[in-house]
């Protein structure tokens, strides 16, 4: 019987893995030489929540109604919730396999806390509060996890830290424990599908990109961490090689990432810009850098406000929709179009264009559930992040992150490597994150639900 092993590396960047360092990564190179590989187009926005759930369900953020970590639950001004696993209402691979009587091992896949039952075992994701929480299915697996790896580490405690030596130690410890647990589960549990996600790649990119990348404005060629990401990739390659011992001749192996990474040139202070342009009015004038919530919003005099992050979500204050809406529904499209054009025109600190792209949700998604942002903004082709604070000495541009050091942003393309019986060798263009789940189901001989948005990458007769 065919099996599938999916090794997810959050944020793993195709240019680093395929172009820069492949020769130093013998296990991944072996898979690349044997199988199909290439860039994997992520969803928009390319962000961990909801990207992994989109991949595992082959559904868009619009289908899931999840547009980022924090989502509006309704059109009130304060109805924000963190999208946890219960927010995902679409079947993911392990739900479908459970229904078909097949076993899954699910380890650390974002969107799996709180845990829900399945046929097999599950250890929940980085959004788990702590090992005090109910983080395994079944419950009894908890004791075994601590026997095998000690305290299981969901994430680094603070990856935007200045103590980088400590961060490095934490990332390695977390990664080693997760792969040790993966090895143990593969050894002791029946499985038709194994799927894990390692967060360390993402944390390393955010923390050490500027040390590696000469194009980064804060790059220090003499810095001690120049090879930190590269060494980590090599370390992960060894751990991947160890897991491959569990892949027999009938096992398809996938290495995937949910999005890539690129240098961060800076941040656009989107709410400060909205304030200066008269879209957003606060109840008090900022005294130094602060959040909009701290000042309070003068809603009857506000047209739009935004949430920051690796991309920005911009919301219009629409009469009849928001509690104190100001934009007449009849003017909504005009206001939105004008705002989008102006956001796209924001230049860098020297007045040069940065190539911002503003999306309307209905153009991105065939179906728009829940409360979507009115505009989804990728500043400067994602070389710039969005910053939500207002006030302070800076203008529209900032080169410090309001939540701590961070020198990488997310890139639109992650990566995929697939190897196994009959899978052709060679690079492949045009692969999409939404194709992953239909591909896995097809290889496992399962029907692909009609609601899935992607298509199998490999046709069984040809495999």
């Amino acid at each position: 019987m065919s099996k599938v092993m999916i090794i997810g590396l959050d944020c793993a960047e195709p240019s680093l893995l395929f172009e820069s360092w492949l020769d130093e990564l013998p296990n991944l190179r072996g898979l690349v030489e044997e199988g199909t590989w290439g860039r994997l187009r992520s969803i928009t926005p390319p962000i961990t929540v909801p990207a992994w759930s989109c991949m595992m369900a082959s559904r868009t953020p619009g289908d899931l109604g999840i547009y980022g970590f924090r989502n509006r639950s309704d059109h009130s001004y304060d109805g924000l919730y963190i999208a946890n696993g219960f927010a995902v209402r679409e079947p993911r691979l392990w739900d479908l396999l459970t229904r078909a009587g097949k076993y899954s091992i699910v380890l650390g896949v974002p969107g799996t806390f709180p845990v829900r039952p399945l046929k097999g075992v599950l250890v929940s994701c980085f959004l788990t509060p702590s090992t005090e929480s109910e983080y395994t299915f079944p419950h009894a697996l908890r004791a075994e996890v601590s026997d095998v790896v000690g305290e299981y580490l969901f994430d680094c405690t603070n990856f935007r830290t200045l103590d980088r030596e400590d961060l490095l130690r934490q990332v390695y410890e977390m990664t080693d424990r997760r792969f040790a647990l993966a090895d143990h589960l593969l050894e002791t549990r029946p499985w038709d599908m194994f799927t894990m996600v390692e967060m360390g790649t993402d944390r390393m990119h955010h923390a050490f990109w500027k040390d590696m990348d000469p194009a980064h404005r804060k790059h220090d060629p003499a810095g001690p961490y120049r090879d930190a990401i590269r060494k980590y990739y090599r370390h992960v390659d060894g751990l991947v090689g160890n897991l491959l011992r569990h892949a027999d001749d009938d096992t398809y192996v996938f290495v995937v990432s949910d999005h890539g990474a690129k240098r961060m040139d800076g941040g656009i202070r989107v709410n400060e810009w909205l304030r200066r342009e008269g879209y957003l009015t606060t109840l008090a004038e900022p005294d130094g850098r602060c959040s909009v919530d701290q000042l309070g919003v003068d809603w009857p005099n506000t047209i739009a406000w935004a949430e920051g992050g690796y991309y920005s979500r911009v919301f219009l204050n629409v009469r009849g929709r928001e509690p104190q809406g100001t934009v007449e529904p009849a003017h909504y499209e005009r206001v939105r179009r004008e705002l989008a054009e102006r956001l796209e025109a924001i230049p860098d600190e020297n007045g040069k264009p940065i190539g911002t792209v503003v999306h309307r949700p209905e153009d991105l998604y065939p179906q728009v559930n829940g409360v979507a942002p009115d505009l989804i903004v990728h500043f400067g082709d994602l070389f710039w992040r969005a910053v939500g604070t207002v006030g302070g000495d800076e203008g529209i541009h900032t080169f410090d992150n309001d939540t701590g050091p961070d020198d990488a942003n997310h890139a639109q393309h992650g990566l995929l490597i697939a190897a196994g019986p009959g899978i052709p060798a060679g690079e492949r263009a045009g692969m999409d994150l939404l194709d992953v789940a239909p591909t896995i189901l097809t290889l496992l001989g399962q029907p692909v639900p009609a609601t899935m948005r992607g298509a199998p990458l490999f046709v069984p007769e040809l495999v």
Partner: protein
Amino acid sequence: MTALSVIGLDAATFSVIDPLVAEGQLPNIAQLLGDGSSGVLRSTTHPLTPVAWTTMVTGVNAGRHGIWDFSCRDESGHHVRLVNGSHRRAPAVWDHLSAAGRRVGIVNVPFTWPAPAVDGFAIAGLDASSRADAAVHPAGLAGELRRRFGASADDHAFPLTDRGELDLDRVRRACEQRVDVVEWLVERFDPELLFVVFMSADHIHHLAWPDWEQRGADSAVAEVYRTLDDAVGRLLALGARDAMLVSDHGGGRLDGVIDLNAWLAREGFLHWDRGGSSGRKAVSGAVAAQRLLPAGLRAQLKRLAPGVRERALELREVSAVNWSRTRAFGYGAFGNLVVNLRGRERYGIVAPGADYEHVRDDLIARALELTSPEGNPIVAAVHRREELFSGEAAAALPDLIVEFDDYAWLGKAPLHEPSSEIWSEIRVGPGGCAPYVGSHRHEGIVALAGESCRAGVALSASIEDVCPTILRLLDEPVPPGLDGRALDEALVGTASERPAAAVAVPETVDYTPAASAEVAGRLRDLGYLE
């Protein structure tokens, strides 16, 4: 008008439903799945009818509700006591609803004897005895049902002829009569919650699972599902605002049966008492012989030798175990190990504390190494009781729960006769006329549809979630501290914020000897009692 109809199909599984729905064979279930949200309902460990249904209707684990198996050992530890619904130590969903003044109708839910005194009506499930009262509430209803619908065509025994052939007409008659009865009761009582259970899918899995694997839609399994689909259709036509379809566990292949006490004897944990009691042996032998006779002859014999069964049950308690040399023994239907613990067991020899843990560790290590005759591992996990259960009733549960690989294996544990043959089988039906060829799985089903439910949500639920979900669908508060959660992802609206009232549970009552013997006979024919 009925707000919610819960239709329970014991053992129903998507591994049968999905292929049949794909072929257009189960139109009513298909419509429910298509209109609403559905997914796997993860059952208890063990996924066994008494613990599974009771966990479903209480929303708490067996450590709190106290119902585990079809039988338990009494205070002496060596007498068999049959379990019934009154052994439940936690309120069921209908207890919460009755306390809130809501009208309910409960029909054939396993482990509901004596029929609960709800506002509305209740007909007890397979733990009801034809030789005991209180199978129906209100009491006067029993006679009226008999007058209107004739003798009860229940589904509490395998649908087998005396020669061991499947009798699918009997399945159909039982389903149709149950729906006839329910239609009349709903008309008369207008319950806000209707909860009806059918046992036939479980029975046909046990008797004919390989037939399903070989013949699919042409199999007897498929025929029973079509019969159940007709019943589902008629119940849905009663027009409740919302409907819920559930099963207590799934079903699948049975690869083999292991005699855990024979295994424990081989491993040196259990020693048989070679002397035995001649009186016990004589009666056991007579009963065993009697079970092999055709039904007609057995009926004659019963008239000639009344009470043989009753006496047999009493005497079975005198097990064939040499307790003073036994450190552990198996007990129950699906695979449990009990340490012969000093201070708890009548002739306990294992000291509490370190010795007890040592015996458990040793048993776990050895059980995990059990292999099939072909040499394949068959034990997926051995659970210490406290890993699975918590609560005041947990102490009465087995010390170790042996979870066989996918439940494709069963561990039976006869104590009344010395056995040395580890590989065993289970024969069921009158006189053991039919082999037991299917078993249970963890994966049951749940589907929700109606005005209060979202469509298209992929549910992934635990069996403890059903009780709070029912309460939410009836706009009642969910009591704090349940082990399950309401399936909010599939529901519209918000949960009630009223405080939940405290609810008491009725006292435990035991069967009379005659009723006990009758139920025990039925459970033996079902393969659940040695």
